[in-house]
């Protein structure tokens, strides 16, 4: 390929074979990075409104639940909460739940639209960028997106004194990992469904994200759940994330338990990632 400003005839004579040698095919990581750059570009118009909601939502939750409901709960003593104030108990879980929701939003409607309505993914994969690289660029972007809103959430928690000690910063990678472990599966769904996007995502929200948020020891300790219900929590990635995040902020999580939660989240992320990449290929290479 000649320089981008060159006339298209100049390279016509040399096209037989050698043109390939200096074709401007980006390497794998650069290809993923360009897809990430594209998604950042589409995020930009919404960046500041997104920042505002990333700060206001935690403020409301912390005031209403942390202090409002917290005052009732603490009146009965904080022993069940491990001796911390209610706002400190729910702080890490709220951060993880918000990360999960942000990841869900980016991997459902937004991605589905690029397959179905705007078809931009077909535009991307008409270039040297492969479907797998497009998929991986999306994962990179969702991680970025979740990390940025989690940092803001963390800062709000800090202001409320609900972010724990120095190790509380570890809540951030935990939140990103938790969000990704679900987002890759939702991405696989978005790459698979064709007609009934709204139906599928509403189901995933109603029977996935919402029950997960309610029964993952976010608002009360898992010991408050009857044994028959605890398996819901054990299967919920958010519970594993909550336990890790709480362990980071408040402490008291044995190392072997932390390792178990981590293994669960990593395994879920990797399997989802493999399935999702395959779904991108099946959808885009017909």
């Amino acid at each position, binding site marked *: 390929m000649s320089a*981008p400003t060159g006339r298209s005839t100049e390279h016509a004579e040399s096209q037989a074979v050698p043109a390939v040698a200096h074709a401007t095919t980006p390497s794998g990581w650069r290809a993923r990075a360009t897809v990430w750059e594209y998604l950042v570009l589409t995020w930009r118009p919404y960046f500041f409104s997104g920042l505002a909601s990333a700060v206001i939502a935690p403020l409301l939750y912390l005031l209403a639940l942390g202090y409002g409901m917290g005052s009732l709960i603490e009146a009965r003593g904080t022993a069940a909460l491990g001796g911390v104030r209610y706002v400190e108990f729910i702080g890490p879980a709220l951060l993880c739940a918000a990360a999960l929701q942000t990841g869900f939003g980016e991997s459902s409607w937004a991605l589905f639209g690029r397959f179905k309505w705007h*078809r931009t993914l077909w535009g991307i994969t008409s270039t040297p960028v492969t479907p797998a690289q497009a998929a991986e660029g999306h994962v990179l972007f969702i991680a970025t997106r979740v990390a940025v809103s989690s940092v803001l959430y963390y800062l709000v928690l800090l202001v409320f004194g609900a972010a724990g000690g120095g190790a509380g910063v570890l809540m951030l990678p935990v939140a990103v990992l938790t969000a990704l472990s679900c987002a890759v599966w939702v991405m696989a769904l978005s790459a698979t469904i064709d007609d009934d996007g709204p139906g599928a995502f509403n189901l995933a929200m109603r029977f996935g994200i919402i029950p997960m948020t309610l029964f993952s020891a976010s608002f009360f300790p898992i010991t408050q759940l009857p044994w028959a219900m605890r398996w819901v929590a054990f299967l919920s990635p958010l519970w594993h994330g909550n336990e890790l995040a709480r362990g980071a902020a408040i402490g008291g999580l044995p190392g072997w338990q932390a390792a178990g939660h981590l293994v669960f989240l990593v395994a879920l992320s990797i399997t989802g990632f493999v399935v999702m990449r395959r779904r991108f290929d099946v959808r885009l290479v017909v």
Partner: protein
Amino acid sequence: MNPPTAGATAAPTSRTPMIAAAGLTKSFPSDDGDDFVAVKGIDLVVPAGEAFGFLGPNGAGKSTTMRMIACVSPRTGGSLSILGQDPSIDGVAIRSRLGVVPQQDNLDEDLTVRENLYIYGRYFGLSRKQCWSKADELLEFAQLTEKAKAKVAALSGGMKRRLTIARSLVNDPDLLLLDEPTTGLDPQARHVLWDRLFRLKQAGVTLVLTTHYMDEAEQLCDRLVVMDGGVIAAEGSPAALIAQYSTREVVELRFVPGTQRSVLPVVEQIVERIEVLPDRLLLYTDTGEQTLESVVAAGVRPVSALVRRSTLEDVFLHLTGRSLVDG
């Protein structure tokens, strides 16, 4: 068709064809177990610098063929070489030298016109600086400079199409693939687009396009194939196809719909080939005015009559027995 201009923009000398296909086949698995064969073993060679067209009705296999050429759809049979390379092995390298205009626009509606061009250049590995300057250059080419900062969602259909074509040029492609470039556009927007494509052709870019508009094929293509039902029904320049498969002129006799068949016995005495359309008879002849006089003299009274030159539409009617657009 105008030949390429002389000098620096003369046709390339390379002998490697841009596209070479033999027995190219594409089948899709279907629910009832029998594969659906969309492209049934076609042969083609497109040399560098040519403007080549696939003409055919919807469902003829044109878009499927284009997707195989664009290296986004693996073939299921036969051989295919694009720019001298095999798409199933060197797809990424080939795609880096192609420009693709899909049938449906896939621009990002949330980004501005300029950003759409910029980010597309990034996919080809161009630097940020190169991408912005290329974007401005292409905005001018597409006559969209005034819309540079507008969101794509606010553009008209013709503008979006021009932007898609501009976008496909961001990597200075050796081969430009256009799938139904002007479908759905009003006549004025089509002429603007044809003008842009004609300039590219004169600059020596190899164009491959699909269309179901015969006027578009006649305007832009040096050579074309007529596709129907997944096979190539005929091949040649527009003029050669007309000479081979039609007569020089056509007499169109318009009737009240349904009454046209009653005069068939009479006109069959006058011309050899007649096509019966719902409201018309088409009489194929080399001397239109004379034929019309004979028809009137024989007592046929159509609602209206006209004599015109043969077009690719007539070629298509002859080859398939169906009309192109309504078929």
